[in-house]
């Protein structure tokens, strides 16, 4: 991993910082005067109560760091636009560390721009970096499926109809893992529970998300969660239909205070500041970074008022198990919803199993299909 210019400069900064950063306020990165510019690119608006907001909150934490300048761009499409936005940050702002945060930015866009800018570091959310890809590209993500598993436990306790619902954008591995985890969590409470999934086909499409939520409520689902970019509409519509809700991406409790059970949230602030710090210190970020609850990549929203004591106890116990590491939500005996065996008895996929990142099935008990 050729990172030498950065490392050298970073080292200078690092040692200078030790020498007396407190007395030299603007002591910077690089030549000792200019700060490190970090760029964030979002696919949607920064305040969507969801995916982009979670990243923007992480960026806000980076902004507060010393010796760092943050530049941001929102609503950047997964086309030539994102390539040019990143290059613009490099050309005009001298950005040395970029966080293109949308799934679809990775291949081909990040992979196309990175080789042309070898002294810039590209950190992509959710991408699957593999050996042979440009060494100045890194990918990071969190095991948020575990959060949906914990969501599922509170849902399993809250449901009366034994039917829970999931509004999903597209049948990609991350989404499928969330759906499966949500149901498997609920089935820890009652193995009879089923989960109805409705795909909207788009990451952000307000009316369709509302219609999908209504269809779930009509089908008898009484706890609903989602995986779309901005969960606001799903949360408000579901609560309006008297369903309980579990959040996703960010804390949506203010949108439905009485009905909100808990939520699986990203916790990018800690991750981003530590990655930026690594670069400031002249270190190299690993090309492949993953982490879960225990590593502070994700967190759970505080449990809502409707969560029963039994539910809380099981939630906390399972959370402790997950924190201990190596937890497998997907474990045998398990079939998918077309009858194929996913895992035999005794087999399991721990949260950090890379096979989970190419998931292409819905487990038994999920009503829906992957295409």
């Amino acid at each position, binding site marked *: 991993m050729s990172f030498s210019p950065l490392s050298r400069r970073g080292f200078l900064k690092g040692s200078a910082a030790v020498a007396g950063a407190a007395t030299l306020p603007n002591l910077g990165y690089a030549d000792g005067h200019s700060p490190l510019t970090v760029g964030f690119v979002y696919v949607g608006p920064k305040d969507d109560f969801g995916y982009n907001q979670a990243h923007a909150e992480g960026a806000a934490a980076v902004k507060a760091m010393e010796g760092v300048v943050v530049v941001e761009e929102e609503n950047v499409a997964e086309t030539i636009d994102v390539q040019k936005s990143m290059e613009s940050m490099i050309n005009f702002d001298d950005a040395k560390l970029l966080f293109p945060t949308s799934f679809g930015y990775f291949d081909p866009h990040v992979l196309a721009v990175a080789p042309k800018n070898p002294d810039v570091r590209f950190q992509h959310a959710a991408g699957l970096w593999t050996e042979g890809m440009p060494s100045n590209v890194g990918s990071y993500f969190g095991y948020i499926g575990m959060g949906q598993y914990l969501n599922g436990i509170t849902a399993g306790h809250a449901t009366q109809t034994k039917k829970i619902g999931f509004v999903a954008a597209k049948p990609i591995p991350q989404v499928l893992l969330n759906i499966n985890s949500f149901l498997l969590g609920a089935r820890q409470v009652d193995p009879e529970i089923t989960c109805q999934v409705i795909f909207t086909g788009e990451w952000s499409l307000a*009316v369709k998300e509302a219609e999908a939520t209504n269809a779930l409520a009509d089908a008898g689902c009484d706890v609903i969660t989602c995986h779309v970019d901005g969960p606001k509409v799903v949360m408000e519509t579901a609560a309006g239909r008297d369903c309980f809700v579990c959040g996703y991406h960010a804390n949506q409790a203010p949108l439905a205070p009485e009905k909100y059970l808990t939520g699986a949230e990203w916790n990018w602030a800690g991750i981003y500041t530590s990655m930026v710090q690594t670069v400031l210190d002249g270190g190299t970020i690993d090309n492949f970074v993953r982490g879960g609850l225990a590593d502070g990549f994700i967190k759970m929203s505080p449990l809502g008022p409707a969560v029963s004591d039994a539910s809380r106890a099981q939630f906390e116990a399972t959370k402790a198990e997950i924190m201990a590491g190596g937890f497998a939500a997907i474990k045998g005996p398990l079939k998918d919803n077309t009858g194929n065996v996913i895992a035999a008895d005794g087999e399991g996929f721990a949260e950090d199993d890379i096979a989970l990142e190419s998931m292409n099935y819905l487990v038994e008990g999920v009503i829906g299909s992957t*295409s």
Partner: protein
Amino acid sequence: MDTDLGYWIIPLAIIGGAIRVSTPFLFVSLGEALTERSGRINLGLEGTLVFGAMSGYAVAYLTGSPWLGVLAAALCGALFGLVHGVICSLPRVNDIAIGIAMMILGMGLAFYFGKPFVQPVAPDLPAISFGWWSDIPQVRAALEVNVLFLIGAGLAVLLWWMLRATRVGLTLRVVGDSTDAARAMGLRPALIRTCATAVGGAFAGVGGAYLSLYYPGSWNEGISSGQGLMAVALVIFARWNPLACFGAALLFGGAGALGPVLQSVGVSEGYYLFFAAPYVLTLGVLIATSSPKRAMTGAPGELSITK
């Protein structure tokens, strides 16, 4: 489970969807029908709708009254319509092109000024429960009817009657059919068209307020997925007849519910194709009811898009 209705939820969802989703289409298409009857086309109502959604939400949040929000949306919409109408009264200015530019301007201004209102929660418009006679929660939910839907339905009838039987309606039709005839009658076509466009804009603004203040009931940049543009097209489909606009909006809303509900009863493969149902149905009806022999019946003679 007494709430499990099986396949009965399909027609129920279509009815519910028609009531929930149709209102923005209804308001925009009624407004555009008026405008087009006067001989102008305002393709920019998507921008007006989005600005109406933003301004309605913002005012509702700031004042605590959703109805003041609707009023604000209507006023903003009227202003957009007025600008379009005045500009298009200049000789040789193309109304279609100005509409497209105003669509961009309206969306731009809405997003620009709407940033601070994405996070706050504004009060919703009230709904009336017409499902009190039923014990079934799905039926009750489907028959939660927003007041704006009822107003829109009433307006459709009113406009239909107005165009047929009143002096205002006649004036509008004459102006729309022939500028020369209107001038000969001592009418001022540009003024009348500008007024019709302003009223059309006000309707579109209200359609937007429905989106942000009732269903889905929040303001963000993705609140409209082209409803304004589609509604303009529906006017041609409805042959400039307000009652047919109502029907078209219901058809569109109802068909839009098919995608989600079919998944919920287990028909889950190929959902993109079900999501396209409103467009396929509309196109099918359009092809079936068109004929090369006669021109578009009901088409105002001065309308640039059907000339």
